[in-house]
C-alpha cells in the first residue's frame, strides 16, 4: 500500500509491524526472521558488552542499522532511576533519540508501573528523547502520556510473551478513539489473527517478539505476521460491514419465479 506511511516523532515507516530481537536461537535466525517480517523498526536491549569473550558476535553485525530503525528499550527496568539510566545510555550509544520506555511494575505479569512510567516519560521528553511508552490498556494513562509529550502510545494486548492475543479489545478501541496519536499495540500477540485484529480495531502498528521468535518456525511466522498486519490494515481502511443479528439476503427477490 503506497502512501499509507506511519509517522512517529518525525520518523516515517512503511511497515506497520515492529519486531523485537530477543529469544531467537541465534543471530542468523534473528536476521532471517526480521527480513521475512518486512519490519522497518527493530527493538533492542541495552546491556554490558561481553569483555571476557571478545570472539562473541554482535547483534548489529547481523542487523544493519542503516537498513532498519533501531529502537532501544529499557527492558528489565523496575524503577524510574534505572529506566532513565538505560535510556540515556542507549542514546549515548549514538544511534538516535528514540527510546521505547518500559518501567515494569511486577515480575510475574511484566505489567507497566504506570506511575513510574509517567514520571520517567516526563523527564525523558524534557531531555529531548522521542519516547515510545509501553503502557497498559487504560485510556486515562494513555492520554496522560500524550499530554506529557509522547508522540505515540503502546498499550499491551496481554502480558509480554503470553500469546493470549487481545485481552481487552474494548479498551483498545476506546484508546484509539480518544487518544489522537498513533497507537502501537505491543505485547501478548500470539498468532497472525491477533495482529490482524489489532489492526482492524484501528491500531497504527503492532509490536511483537515472542510470537515470532517462539513459534515453531519463526521465519514462517514472521511472514505470516507481515501479511496479518497488512490484511488487518487494509480491512480497517476498507470499512467493514456492520454486525447484524439477522440475515440480509444478498440476491434480489425481483425476477424470481
Amino acid at each position, binding site marked *: 500500500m503506497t502512501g499509507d506511511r506511519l509517522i512517529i516523532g518525525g520518523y516515517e515507516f512503511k511497515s506497520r509491524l515492529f519486531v*523485537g*530481537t*530477543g*529469544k*531467537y536461537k541465534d*543471530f542468523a535466525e*534473528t536476521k532471517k526472521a526480521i527480513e521475512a517480517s518486512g519490519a522497518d523498526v527493530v*527493538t*533492542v*536491549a*541495552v*546491556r*554490558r*558488552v561481553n*569483555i*571476557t569473550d*571478545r570472539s562473541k558476535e*554482535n*547483534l*548489529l553485525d547481523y542487523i544493519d*542499522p542503516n537498513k532498519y530503525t*533501531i529502537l*532501544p*528499550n529499557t*527492558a*528489565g527496568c523496575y524503577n524510574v532511576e534505572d529506566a532513565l539510566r538505560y535510556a*540515556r*545510555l*542507549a*542514546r*549515548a*550509544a*549514538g*544511534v538516535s533519540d528514540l527510546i*521505547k520506555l*518500559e518501567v*515494569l511494575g511486577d515480575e510475574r505479569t*511484566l505489567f507497566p508501573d504506570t506511575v513510574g512510567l509517567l514520571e520517567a516519560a516526563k523527564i525523558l521528553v524534557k531531555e529531548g528523547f522521542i519516547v515510545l511508552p509501553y503502557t497498559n490498556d487504560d485510556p486515562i494513562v494513555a492520554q496522560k502520556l500524550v499530554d506529557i509529550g509522547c508522540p505515540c502510545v503502546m498499550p499491551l494486548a496481554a502480558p*509480554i510473551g503470553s500469546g493470549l492475543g487481545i485481552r481487552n479489545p474494548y479498551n483498545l478501541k476506546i484508546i484509539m478513539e480518544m487518544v489522537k496519536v498513533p497507537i502501537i499495540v505491543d505485547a501478548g500477540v500470539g498468532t497472525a489473527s491477533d495482529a490482524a485484529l489489532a489492526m482492524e480495531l484501528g491500531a497504527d502498528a503492532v509490536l511483537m*517478539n515472542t510470537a515470532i521468535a517462539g513459534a515453531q518456525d519463526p521465519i514462517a511466522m514472521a511472514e505470516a505476521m507481515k501479511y496479518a498486519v497488512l490484511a488487518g490494515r487494509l480491512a480497517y481502511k476498507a470499512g467493514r460491514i456492520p454486525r447484524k443479528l439477522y440475515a440480509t439476503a444478498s440476491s434480489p427477490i425481483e425476477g424470481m419465479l
Partner: protein
Amino acid sequence: MAEAIQIQVNGEPRGCRADATVGDLLRELSIKTERVAVELNLEILDRKEFDLRSLKSGDRVEILSFIGGGS
C-alpha cells in the same frame, strides 16, 4: 613506564596503565566505539571524551551496547 592501577570494568576487576584513557581501554579490549555507551563512575561519557578522560585507580567503567531482547 607508568605503573599499573586497579579499576573495575563491567563489574570485574581489571588492571590498566596509570595514564590510560577510556579510549585506550576500549582499544585494548578490541571494542569498536560505534554504538557503544560508556559510563565512568556513573557519569555517561560523550564519545568525544573517550580519548580525553584518563582512568584513575578505583574507577568503575561500564561499557554497554545493544543486544537482542525486550522484557
